[in-house]
């Protein structure tokens, strides 16, 4: 009987040590890098067909070229698996925080001008109110206006005309109450026609300004 108490104590200590050790083991396990694989999912691009993503590492390469296709990558050297088409709902659930943070894509407008002038054609002038509203709704917004000319006149003249057209659009938007956080006006002169023409050709579709609200 005398030796029973120390033996019990010894047993208890032994059990305690075992519990501690296994506790240590599990906690160490959870500290290890997550076993979850990385995932890449191709999404539709609005009404455009999806592009293509090539996923490659030391283990191999996979190509995604259809909406909702995905690959899993088990690690830096693990071969990218798939591609597997995922359920739209499952993807939206798994990625909801990042989807919610996605800004609306930039909005583009095209405005057309009278010949050799910074005056807008009436149907383009009518768009200004809507553009100003878009700038307000997207505040803080970045506004970019790129002016263009047709091929009548010199390169230098059309560059200057493009600059004046871009500045005129920015001024008219400001007078409509648009207050973008940042504004960038520039010109491509006659270098980037919407409709390619021979030199010295009047072309109404090339007398334009491209407006982007980001």
């Amino acid at each position, binding site marked *: 009987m005398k030796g029973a108490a120390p033996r019990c104590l010894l047993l208890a200590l032994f059990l305690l040590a075992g519990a501690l050790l296994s506790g240590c083991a599990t906690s160490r396990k959870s500290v290890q890098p997550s076993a979850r694989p990385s995932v890449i999912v191709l999404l539709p691009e609005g009404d455009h067909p999806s592009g293509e993503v090539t996923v490659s590492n030391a283990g191999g390469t996979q190509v995604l070229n259809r909406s909702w296709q995905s690959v899993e990558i088990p690690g830096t050297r693990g071969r990218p698996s798939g591609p597997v088409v995922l359920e739209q709902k499952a993807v939206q659930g798994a*990625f909801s925080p990042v989807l919610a943070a996605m800004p609306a894509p930039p909005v583009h407008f095209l405005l057309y001008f009278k010949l050799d002038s910074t005056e807008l054609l009436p149907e383009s002038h009518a768009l200004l109110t809507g553009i100003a509203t878009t700038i307000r709704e*997207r505040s803080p917004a970045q506004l970019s206006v790129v002016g263009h000319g047709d091929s009548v006149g010199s390169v230098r003249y059309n560059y200057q005309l493009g600059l004046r057209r871009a500045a005129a659009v920015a001024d008219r938007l400001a007078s409509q109450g648009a207050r973008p956080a940042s504004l960038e006006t520039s010109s491509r002169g006659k270098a980037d026609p919407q409709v390619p023409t021979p030199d010295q050709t009047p072309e109404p579709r090339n007398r334009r300004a491209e407006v982007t609200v980001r």
Partner: protein
Amino acid sequence: MRILLILCVLLAWTGGALGQDERPIGLVKTASGEATVLREGRRLTALPGLGLALGDVLATGSRGSLGVILRDDTVLSLGPSSQIKLEQFVFEPAQGNLGMVLRVTRGLIEYLSGKISKLAPGSVRIETPVATLGIRGTHLLARIEP
């Protein structure tokens, strides 16, 4: 004549200085929770309207999120505990200079390609610790577990 020469030199010099593009390469559009921009060792709070510079690291905390638009119309967002570096951004369509590299360290990312990818397919890359993504004009989601 001499004055003209000096004027020309001065014009070329200021032209060169202006030519060094110091415009922001993008803009913070959405932010919630802990959302920061790390720039040259400084930690800036990412509020909507903040301009972005080349080399910026966008980072979110465990309940943060962040959305940005770059100057070529690329749209990006980060979910919680995510980090991405704007490593390369070249958008000079008039000169035909185009390219972009984004480095994702970890987390949830949404990417919608802009004009760089459309004008020069194959010139955009997303680098991650687990794989390199070659982009040809597209829209994707990534969860990167380093």
